[in-house]
């Protein structure tokens, strides 16, 4: 029994951490129409940034600044934001699939850099020497995991709330207008380049927060954690949940993460041995099928975007129900 509860806590923690990344992508794609094909780069920037800033002193690679954990986490978010700013300036003129290709390239370059530059972040070995916050006080076991889950859920709730206020504000209106028709927005006095850059940065900071929490949870990060598959998983979560709907983004993260872990477990348990060898590949195929199937038969997702009716918008009716 305790085993199942332990597992549920573990599962919920990872799903909640990924939800935050999906929320970040939802701001970029769902609300602003920015095709970020390199989600994992910003996730990785947050993860590496947090561990380098907050980890114990290392000789083999950069890091070990032992910064107070909340500041290290914020530092990770800032790292992701800075990267988004640079990528955003460079790709300001790119749209749609061109932006996707460029950001995908950035993510592959990011992974290769970290894999090979050992002096920077430990290379293929990954970053070690990070001690989880309050570890000495709460120990390693069940109590710690419950505590960490609550911490993650609070941050998920805060992110959700922040985004709900943001997308219902005039700024959110600008993002949607940009997504719907940039030329029309331009003719109405809006500055698409600036709006696009702002959206890319805010979304990436949120994705960076997700990465920072992920790295904190495992007290470890390596290039294996920033492979393109994570980008596709996060995209699948958003598409299944419903682009443009924050509730959908969170629901999609839980649904897809459950399907992913269940398929892995089911294959390793019930499939014949020669098929088990290909568990990873089969899961890749499944995630691709989910994305394509969803786009074909229910492109609006499980929770379609709702029209923002501003007429009664004086009272904010969106309640946080996490």
């Amino acid at each position, binding site marked *: 029994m305790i085993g199942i509860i332990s597992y549920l806590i573990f599962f919920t923690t990872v799903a909640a951490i990924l939800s935050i990344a999906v929320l970040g992508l939802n701001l970029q794609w769902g609300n602003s129409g920015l095709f970020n094909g390199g989600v994992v780069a910003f996730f990785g920037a947050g993860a590496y940034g947090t561990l380098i800033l907050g980890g114990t002193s290392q000789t083999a690679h950069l890091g070990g600044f032992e910064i107070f954990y909340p500041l290290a986490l914020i530092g990770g978010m800032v790292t992701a934001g800075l990267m988004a700013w640079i990528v955003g300036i460079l790709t300001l003129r790119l749209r749609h699939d061109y932006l996707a290709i460029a950001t995908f390239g950035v993510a592959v370059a990011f992974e290769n850099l970290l894999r090979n530059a050992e002096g920077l972040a430990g290379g293929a070995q990954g970053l070690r020497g990070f001690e989880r916050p309050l570890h000495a006080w709460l120990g390693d076991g069940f109590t710690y995991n419950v505590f960490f889950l609550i911490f993650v859920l609070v941050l998920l709730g805060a992110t959700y709330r922040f985004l709900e206020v943001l997308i219902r504000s005039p700024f959110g209106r600008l993002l*949607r*207008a940009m997504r*719907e028709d940039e030329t*029309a927005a331009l003719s*109405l*006095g809006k500055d698409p380049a600036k709006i696009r850059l702002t959206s890319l940065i805010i979304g990436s900071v949120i994705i960076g927060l997700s990465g920072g929490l992920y790295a904190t949870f495992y007290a470890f990060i390596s290039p294996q954690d920033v492979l393109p598959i994570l980008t596709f998983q996060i995209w699948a979560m958003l598409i299944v949940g419903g682009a443009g709907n924050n509730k959908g983004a969170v629901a999609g993260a839980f649904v897809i993460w459950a399907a992913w872990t269940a398929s892995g477990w089911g294959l390793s348990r019930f499939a014949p041995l020669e098929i088990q060898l290909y568990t990873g590949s089969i899961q890749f195929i499944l995630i691709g099928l989910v994305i394509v199937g969803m786009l074909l038969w229910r492109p609006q997702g499980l929770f379609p975007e709702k029209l923002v009716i*501003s007429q009664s*918008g004086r009272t904010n009716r969106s309640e946080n129900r996490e």
Partner: protein
Amino acid sequence: MAEAILGLQGVTRDFGPFRAVDSVSFDINRGSITGLIGPNGAGKTTLFNVLTGMLPPTAGKVHLDGRDVTRLSANRLFGQGLGRTFQIPRPFSKMSVLENVMLAPMAQLGERWFGPFLHADKVQQQEGVIRDKAIEVLKFVTLDQLADHAAGQISGGQMKLLELARVLMGDPQLILLDEPAAGVNPALTGILIEKIEELNRQGKTFVIIEHDMDFVMQHCDPVIALAEGKVVFEGTPQEAQANPILLDAYLGSQFDD
């Protein structure tokens, strides 16, 4: 001599070797409704795109209210009092009609991302003012009943009215309309004309691209005709109707369509 709100001197625009607009010069007088006519491909829409900052001109100068605005970007020009609509309507489809209109006012406090967090009260208050104005403008263009509908789901004619409403939110002095009557049912065209004339009485200047000759002859004065990128005629609608070149080159061919 009436005062010019818009002045064009030798405005030219090339697309590669093709000269779409060829040293066009004319003045638009404040308070007028100018009809811009010409066969398909004459360069009317390209000229609009140059005037509104969507395309930089290859050569020439544009003055708005006496200021040189030749190199000003489209978003800046809207702030300078120049509004436009599009030949094929460009609604923000998945936004409500009201949101479409509320988007338009310049320099909203809540357009900064931190606005709703740092100045929540002020943003809320400004939203109230903008909403009231938006509803008023929607009433003016007779779309207030559709305020909560998705803009992509209203009819093409209603979209043209919506585009006019969005532009009016910016309180421009000069409004460029690209084929406002095309594909619009007669009842809505009637409303549109009525609104244009009412706004004109309030002092707004219009330049209208239109193929519907009845529309141009009845409501526009002066009329400017373009052909192959050049101005081929400038005068009153009566002169236009009596002009043999226009009858041949343009009015005639229109009736052949």
